[in-house]
C-alpha cells in the first residue's frame, strides 16, 4: 500500500512530508504505542491476539488508560500541549478506544491497522471517521 492509498483514508496527509513503514500485521496501534511490535493488543487473549492478564476484556478507554499508566505513562496533558517526554494519545468514539498514536523523539507516529505505521504526522492528521477524536494524552513523567 503506497502513500496514495493511505491518503485516501487520511486526506490531511496529502502533501505532507511523512514517512511510511513496511506493512506488519503482527502488531496494532496499541502494541506499537507501548513498544511491543510483536503482538496485536486486543481483548480477549488468544487466536493471535494479546491482552495483558488482570485487566477486563473490554475496549473501554478506562481500561486501556489503566494499562497505559502501568507502562509508565502517568502524566496527562492536553492536546494543545507539545509533549516533553514520550507520550501516547488515545483516540476514541464514545467510551471505546479506536486508535493510538505515540510521541517519541519529537514526533508523533502511529500504526495504521494491520498495515503501515506513519511517522512525523500530527494528531489531527489521524482524526478520521474510523478513529474519532483524541480523548486523552498520557506522558511519561519528566526525569
Amino acid at each position, binding site marked *: *500500500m503506497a502513500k496514495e492509498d493511505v491518503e485516501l*483514508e*487520511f486526506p490531511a496527509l496529502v502533501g505532507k512530508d511523512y514517512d511510511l513503514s513496511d506493512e506488519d*500485521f*503482527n502488531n*496494532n*496501534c*496499541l502494541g506499537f504505542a507501548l513498544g511491543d511490535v*510483536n*503482538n*496485536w493488543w*486486543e481483548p480477549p*487473549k*488468544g*487466536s*493471535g*491476539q*494479546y491482552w495483558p492478564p488482570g485487566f477486563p476484556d473490554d*475496549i473501554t478507554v478506562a481500561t486501556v488508560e489503566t494499562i497505559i499508566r502501568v507502562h509508565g505513562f502517568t502524566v496527562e496533558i492536553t492536546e494543545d500541549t507539545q509533549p516533553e517526554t514520550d507520550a501516547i494519545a488515545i483516540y476514541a468514539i464514545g467510551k471505546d478506544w*479506536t*486508535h*493510538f498514536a505515540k510521541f517519541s523523539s519529537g514526533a508523533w507516529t502511529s*500504526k*495504521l*491497522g*494491520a*498495515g503501515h505505521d506513519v511517522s512525523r504526522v500530527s494528531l489531527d492528521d489521524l482524526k478520521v471517521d*474510523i*478513529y474519532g477524536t483524541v480523548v486523552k494524552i498520557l506522558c511519561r513523567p519528566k526525569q
Partner: protein
Amino acid sequence: MPLIKEKELSKGASWFSSECSRDRAHHTEDNQWNSRHLALFANDWIGKKPDHQDWGMAEVTSIDFSCGRLIIGEHSKSYSGFGEIIFPQYYEASYATVALKARAEELRYEFEVLSKRWQRDSRHISLISKKVAHPAYLRIIGMGEAAIPLLLEALRDKPDHWFAALRAIANTDPCPIDANPSEAREAWLSWGKSHGYID
C-alpha cells in the same frame, strides 16, 4: 501422485465397479469406455493431469458429481485394457475433500471480490473485533466450509487476520493461546495441511 495398482483392489472396488457399469452403458454408444477408471488420492489430482506414465494414462478431464458419488472416468484410446481402480483407504476422505475443493472453486471469484473489499475497507481499523464485522467478512464466513481452502490460501499468500473466519467456520482453534499473528498463521496453515484443505 499416488496411483493404485489392480492387485490392490479391495472392497472399495465393488462400489466403484457398479458405478462404472452404469457409466459404461452410458458411454458404450461412442465406444469410448475402453479405458481404466481411476480414483486417485484427491489432494493430488484435482485439476491436474496424471503424469504417471506406467499406466499409459490419459488426462483426467471430467469429474462427475451429479450422482452424488465421486467418479473419475477417462477414455484412453491408446489403452486397450479395462479396469476399475479405487483407493479404498482414501475413498471417504477423498470424496469429501474433492467435493469441498470443487465447491471452493465455484466460490473463488466471489471470495476474491469480497476479500479485496474487506481489506480495502478495514485495513486501517485497529481492532479485529471491528474488522470482522464488515459485511464482506461476514459473507465469507457464510460461505461455510468451502471457504476454508480459500481462506488458507489467502492467509498463506498474504498474511492477514483471517483467523476469526477460520475459527468460526472450522469450529476449532489450533493457535496456542500465546500465539502472535505470525504464529497463529503458521498454526492455521499447519492445521489446513494436516486436514487436507491445502497442499
